[in-house]
């Protein structure tokens, strides 16, 4: 307790205190360590994320299985043996979207339940580093999902062969995944500390992702048609507008999510 009552004691504190380094205890050595840089924090967070996922296998196998099962469901629902063009593109896009919602739902659950947000806010790490790490993790999960889902789709439902179209498909899905990762991470963080988090996540994410679905489906449909164009022709054609759409969307929402993320981490 200071020697003098309330306000007076504060006035005695040296005026330059805010410029001095933080006060350390007489017995406790100040380590003088540097705060980790942005990218090393991202790396540490991403590493932890992937380690936990590898141990629990909570997200990725579920997403992949969901996608494959959904293709089977579509087969029965549409009563068709094979699809192509518009229909194929639509089914693939929607299935991947719904599967990604599963991953989005689980993204922050471990952190919310095991105090991860607190641990991060006590560390000299920017909240945006968590955003980049989580979005990167989600991106990786989506990539793995697609590595399973696209061949499964080709096997189960696709009427055409898509060997030549593969580069185009990869490009489209990659761009779409970037958008889903950015928006999905933001929505996941938003939904995780609310009641009914499993409901709110998809409810918020779906309308936001409609442009992605539209762009993915429209860009994929020529590639999944019977006479798929070569990569160069495909890019130069109507698909250019979709590639630009992806770029716009990914950039805009990536920046917005990056900027706003910190506000979601507070108590």
């Amino acid at each position, binding site marked *: 307790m200071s020697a003098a009552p309330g306000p007076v004691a504060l006035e005695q504190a040296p005026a330059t205190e805010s410029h001095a380094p*933080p006060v350390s205890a007489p017995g406790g050595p100040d380590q003088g360590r540097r705060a980790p840089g942005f990218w090393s924090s991202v790396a540490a967070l991403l590493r932890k994320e992937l380690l936990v996922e590898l141990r629990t296998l909570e997200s990725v196998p579920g997403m992949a299985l969901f996608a494959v099962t959904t293709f089977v469901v579509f087969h029965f629902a549409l009563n068709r043996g094979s699809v192509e063009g518009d229909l194929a593109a639509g089914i693939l896009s929607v299935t991947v979207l719904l599967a990604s919602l599963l991953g989005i739902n689980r993204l922050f659950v471990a952190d919310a339940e095991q105090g991860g947000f607190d641990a991060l806010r*006590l560390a000299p790490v920017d909240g945006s580093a968590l955003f980049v790490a989580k979005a990167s993790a989600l991106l990786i999960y989506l990539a793995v999902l697609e590595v399973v889902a696209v061949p499964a789709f080709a096997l189960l439902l696709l009427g055409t062969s898509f060997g030549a179209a593969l580069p185009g498909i990869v490009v489209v899905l990659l761009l779409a995944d970037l958008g889903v990762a950015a928006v999905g991470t933001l929505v996941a963080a938003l939904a995780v500390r609310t009641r009914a988090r499993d409901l709110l996540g998809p409810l918020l994410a779906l309308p936001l992702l409609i442009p992605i679905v539209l762009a993915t489906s429209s860009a994929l449909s020529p590639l999944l048609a019977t006479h798929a164009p070569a990569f160069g022709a495909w890019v130069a054609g109507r698909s250019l507008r979709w590639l630009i759409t992806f770029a716009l969307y990914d950039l805009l929402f990536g920046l917005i999510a990056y900027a706003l993320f910190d506000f979601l981490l507070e108590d």
Partner: protein
Amino acid sequence: MRRNGWLASHSPALELSALTRRFGERVVLRELSLSLPAGGTMVVFGPNGAGKTTLLRVLAGLLRPHGGRVRVLGRELPREGFAIRGMIGWLGHEPLLYRELTARENLRFHARLHGIEETRVEQSLAEVGMTGRAEEPMRELSRGMVQRVATARAVLGRPPLLLLDEPLSNLDPAARELVEPLIGRSSGCTRVIASHDPQAGLAEADVVLGLRGGRAELFGEAAGFEAERVMELYR
């Protein structure tokens, strides 16, 4: 004796002036004003809901003050909050450890996040006597062991300020001895401890704060209080 006279001579590690914090319309901390010099130990008593945990969270920078001013380690919160990150050893109700990772992995993660060199991890595990069980996932360890690892996590960077919420609750006497040099008086750190044990708490404290309904009903040097007085808070 440590408690006499030194209190006025050290610059404060904590300064609160009319700190107020609400939860919805309920006032959880009501215009708290106090200061704690560096190296001192303040023990906070109070029934559940009195605001102990909220106070600790505000000091840690996890909650923003709704009114008044807070200075921790010379920095004003929340404006300069980022400057004191990593200077605080937090041991709350949650161990802040990932259940699926091992003790070693958890500590390594913490070290990387704080820029602490990784040699400290092995040292820390040895300090809490967990070297042998460091390769098992946290979910397989008993509560006492989890608490030990959490303690190691809290002091990994040897922070100057410790905020402890009933730190000894899950520990057996042997474990308590182990952690004493880390979070006890001999650590030399400034400490704020929330406690439910009047006897033990008073023995630890230089300064006592008794909260009830968010208000400070007791405050002063520990020498001036009896356990019975502290018990009255809980009635």
